[in-house]
């Protein structure tokens, strides 16, 4: 399970340039203004989606706990041998599927305020992860 790392390709280079700076980019249609998750390739009428910075804030929609070995220790849940992942509904609207870190699955619930952070599995490109907003 060691050795997993993410490398950029041409299409993802702007995205990973931003994650390296701790910034999450989304896709926005210059025609209709709709904002999409980063992997969206086109809008109804046009293909030239532009990158736009996200606030990095959202709420948890749903989550699950995968009992396969984590792909990388940076993606492991609190017990070290499972991984938690879910959909975070970003303030901008799109759902982002992310690893969920720094959370006991027992505290997760729909609507939980979340913040996007970044990890580098295997020392490769930085990717967004979701973490509960620390209370108080």
């Amino acid at each position: 399970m060691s050795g997993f790392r993410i490398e950029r390709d041409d299409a993802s280079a702007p995205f990973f340039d931003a994650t390296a700076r701790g910034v999450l980019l989304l896709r926005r249609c210059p025609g209709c203004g709709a904002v999409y998750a980063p992997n969206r390739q086109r809008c109804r009428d046009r293909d030239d989606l532009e990158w736009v910075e996200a606030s990095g804030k959202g709420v948890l929609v749903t989550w699950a706990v995968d009992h396969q070995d984590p792909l990388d220790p940076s993606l492991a849940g609190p017990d070290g041998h499972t991984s938690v992942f879910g959909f975070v509904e970003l303030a901008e609207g799109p759902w982002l599927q992310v690893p969920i870190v720094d959370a006991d699955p027992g505290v997760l619930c729909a609507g939980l305020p979340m913040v996007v952070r970044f990890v580098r599995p295997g020392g490769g490109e930085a990717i967004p992860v979701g973490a509960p907003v620390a209370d108080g």
Partner: protein
Amino acid sequence: MSIESTYPLVVQTVAAEAAVLDRAAIAGLGITQVGRVYGRTAADFAAEAVRLAVVDAGLTLDDVDGMLLSNGITGGVELRLARDLGLRNLRLLSNVIAYGATATAQVQIAAAAVASGMASVVVCVHADAPLQAPGTSSGGVYSGAARTGAAKGLAAMAAASGVRSANNGYALAARRHMEHYGTTSEQLGAIAVAQRAWAAMNPLARFRDPITVADHQASRWVVEPLHLLDCCVVSNGGIAIVVTTADRARDLAQPPVYVWGAAQCHPGYTMARDSEFGLTTGAAIAGPAAMAMAGIAPADVDVRELYDCYTYTNLVTLEDYGFCAKGEGGALAASGALAPGGSLPTNTGGGQLSAYYLWGMTPVSEAIIQVRGHGGDRQVPVHDIVLVSGNGGTLDHHATLVLGSGPRS
């Protein structure tokens, strides 16, 4: 646009049109050995299933003038199967792909083809051979993501974010339903228990020993909230179905299974604010539309054969088809209504959870068996109207069939 707001328009449209699909009927069913059957390719299974289905119908391969093919994950069921089987001058030949909704869609397309006169005897076949040798991890063959090494771009990021197998997407859907409606793991377990009780009476079923909700709770986590006993089996095998005109089917070897209604819905979830993913599926449109075409309501359905890649899939489909109020599928399952002797017999062969997993052919094949009255120990006494679902992707594709033991009046 929400599924709920779209639904009345769709149903009105369907109801306003004269149904023609009842000119079609299912006349043949062929099922190869299914399960842990090794050393044969998907094409081997497909060829055998076609031969079995044609013989079952009382026809020969020379009567076939159309074929619709479906691959599972291993591939190999190709158009050349027609030539290999010596089929000449076919009037319809295609691969069909809507993942788990494919089999239901194949029968729909075949019925439309024979009802319109485009073809007269259409064989629909699906085969797969994902289990290649004893000891192969059955679930592992469905894991697509790289487990080690470098991976590229946003697709690799998705794998790191939990997009590692079909289990993961359905776990997210099930959890959302549980959070929103209070559905519990024990209620999902009641579906596994009911279907195992049906499977005990099905000679083709992979697992036939009774289980309890406690067994379900004690089975290992695959992806929480899904236990092992929430997940379908993985099977090798092939199933084929012969569709012809109702007039012709009446003179053939088996009791005709009439096609009363058919509909599809591909919701195109936005996966953004207000998305209904996990809560409501394409069944909420396709189900009522197919029943409207058939001229029936949920209360008229005698038997349900519902796609059950996971217990949750069965539960959400029961809700969307209107067998209980939205959000009450868990209570319905826990009531025992779905089990042998219950008021809503469902997945009477054990389904994909306990019997065999050949995509949508699992529910379609059991529906044919039940309509014909060939269910043996598991035969439901009243079996005049059977509702069938197919579901593909992660709830992305839905297809519904209403089948009847007699002509639609």
